[in-house]
């Protein structure tokens, strides 16, 4: 059970003078249950890539296999694929349209041909999963706060019971607390359901804390595909392509350069705290404290 991209190429505006090679020979295997960060700056091809995952865009060449089946085979059920690979676009609150929150979340399951009852059950479960309380169910989605709207929109995709959840910039425009809340909620969802999550972002700092694998896109190709620690080792190369490792990486590197014998692979503030405490002369700390 997995999603495989095999030598995928995509060219926008083929046969015209303005042709753009948006994806170049992308090969990826996305197994069940991984938490993945997909990183790249604007125009790196990451948005084009995620639209390939549920068949919204057909590759110019190459193939995509979901559970061993080519998704662009003639009689492949695309609708079913889209329910299995749930794609949440950037600013998903812009797709809300129903008169109340609950109806909006029912839209997806009903499109799948489920009964009203089943759709409602799924909508209820999905809204709970994103932390929307009952009191909001019958409010107009347009009266909610920005963060709540986004949760409802994510629930709209979750209600289709996807096996892979792809979120394009789920924290864009939110304030720091709102950002942490959404990311924590997604991490919790991942924990509870074992769903595969692909988090698209341009911020390493946001994803470093959560994901187990980072795919870095640049100019339409995969630049790195590895565990966060390994990817951040290339912090200098990342900078050259307009990205940056988390600030913690730079701090650890700077400390090491100035002679403190720290392990520079820490990717989060917590890890850095532990590492620095380990390497600091303990007596001095205590003495200073006294």
């Amino acid at each position, binding site marked *: 059970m997995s999603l495989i991209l095999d030598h995928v190429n995509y060219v926008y505006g083929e046969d015209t003078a303005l042709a753009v090679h948006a994806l170049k020979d992308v090969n990826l295997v996305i197994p069940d249950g991984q938490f993945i960060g997909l990183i790249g700056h604007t125009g790196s091809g990451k948005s084009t890539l995620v639209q390939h995952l549920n068949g*919204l865009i057909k590759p110019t060449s190459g193939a995509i296999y979901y559970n061993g089946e080519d998704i662009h085979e003639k009689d492949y059920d695309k609708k079913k694929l*889209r329910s299995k690979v749930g794609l949440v676009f950037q600013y998903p609150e812009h*797709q*809300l349209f129903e008169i109340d929150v609950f109806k909006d979340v029912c839209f997806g399951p009903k499109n799948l041909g489920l009964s009203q009852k089943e759709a409602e059950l799924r909508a209820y479960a999905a809204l709970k999963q994103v932390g929307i309380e009952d009191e909001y169910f019958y409010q107009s989605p*347009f009266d909610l706060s920005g963060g709540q709207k986004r949760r409802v929109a994510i629930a709209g995709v979750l209600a*289709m019971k996807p096996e892979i959840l792809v979120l394009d910039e789920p924290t864009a425009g939110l304030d720091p607390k709102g950002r942490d809340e959404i990311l924590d909620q997604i991490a919790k969802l991942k924990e509870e359901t074992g769903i595969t999550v692909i988090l698209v972002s341009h911020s390493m700092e946001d994803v470093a804390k959560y994901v187990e694998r980072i795919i870095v896109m640049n100019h339409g190709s995969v630049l790195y595909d590895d565990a966060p620690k390994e990817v951040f080792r290339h912090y200098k190369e990342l900078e050259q392509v307009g990205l940056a490792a988390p600030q913690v990486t730079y701090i650890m590197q700077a400390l090491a350069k100035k002679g403190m014998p720290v392990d520079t692979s820490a990717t989060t503030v917590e890890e850095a705290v532990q590492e620095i405490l380990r390497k600091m002369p303990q007596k001095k700390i205590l003495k200073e404290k006294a």
Partner: protein
Amino acid sequence: MIRDITLGQYYQADSVIHKLDPRVKLVATLCFIISLFVVDSWVGYVAAAVFLAVMIRLSKVPFRFMVKGMKAIVFILLITVVFNLFLTPGEPLVTVWKFTITEEGLRIAVMMAVRLSFLIVGSSLMTLTTTPNSLTDAMEKLMGPLKYLKVPVHEVAMMMSIALRFIPILLEETDKIMKAQIARGADFESGNLIKKAKAMVPLLVPLFISAFRRANDLAMAMEARCYRGGEHRTKMKPLRYHAADRVAYCVLLLYFAGCVAIRVWL
């Protein structure tokens, strides 16, 4: 998907026609269209064809761009021709089963076809060589006198240019919302007409909301930049006639006088 509309879009080139004042081109297009209805003889159409051909040549726009514009109206053209061909009473020419083609019918059909295609090519020549922006400028300036009749000329022109600026943005947005709803299992393609219309709701509601939000933001941004209608306003790119424009007006006058002369004397 929807972005492939190319009918009469501006074609960048460095030509005499491109450089003309947009007012000249607007007036010329109007005159040309009128002239097509003034002349009613073959000599007249030849004159119009020559005039058009010379202008196209001068504009340096490849001929296939003109033809592209024609594609959109082929259907209307065919209907017009067929109706005129079979339904005009007069001297029978050929009879096929119940349908009769008359001499008058043939004449009118060909004439209508020529008129319509000249009209389309003529007006697309204007849009191909003039940016939408300068076209609105020209309209504002030409309609200027209407201000005294309390017609909000400046405001209308401003609305047009804002609309032009936001069309590509809204098209992109439509595309995005459509994809987002397809990702939620929406189906915009299958079903009968009623089902299709119903399927548009998840697209149209978000699109309207977004358009209103944008309009609101834009109004605020314009006010913040001291916009207060047409009064007290100066122009960064005021329209000024140059020598070439005067020559163009003379050529136009000659052509139009010629058309009238053909009508009267031939």
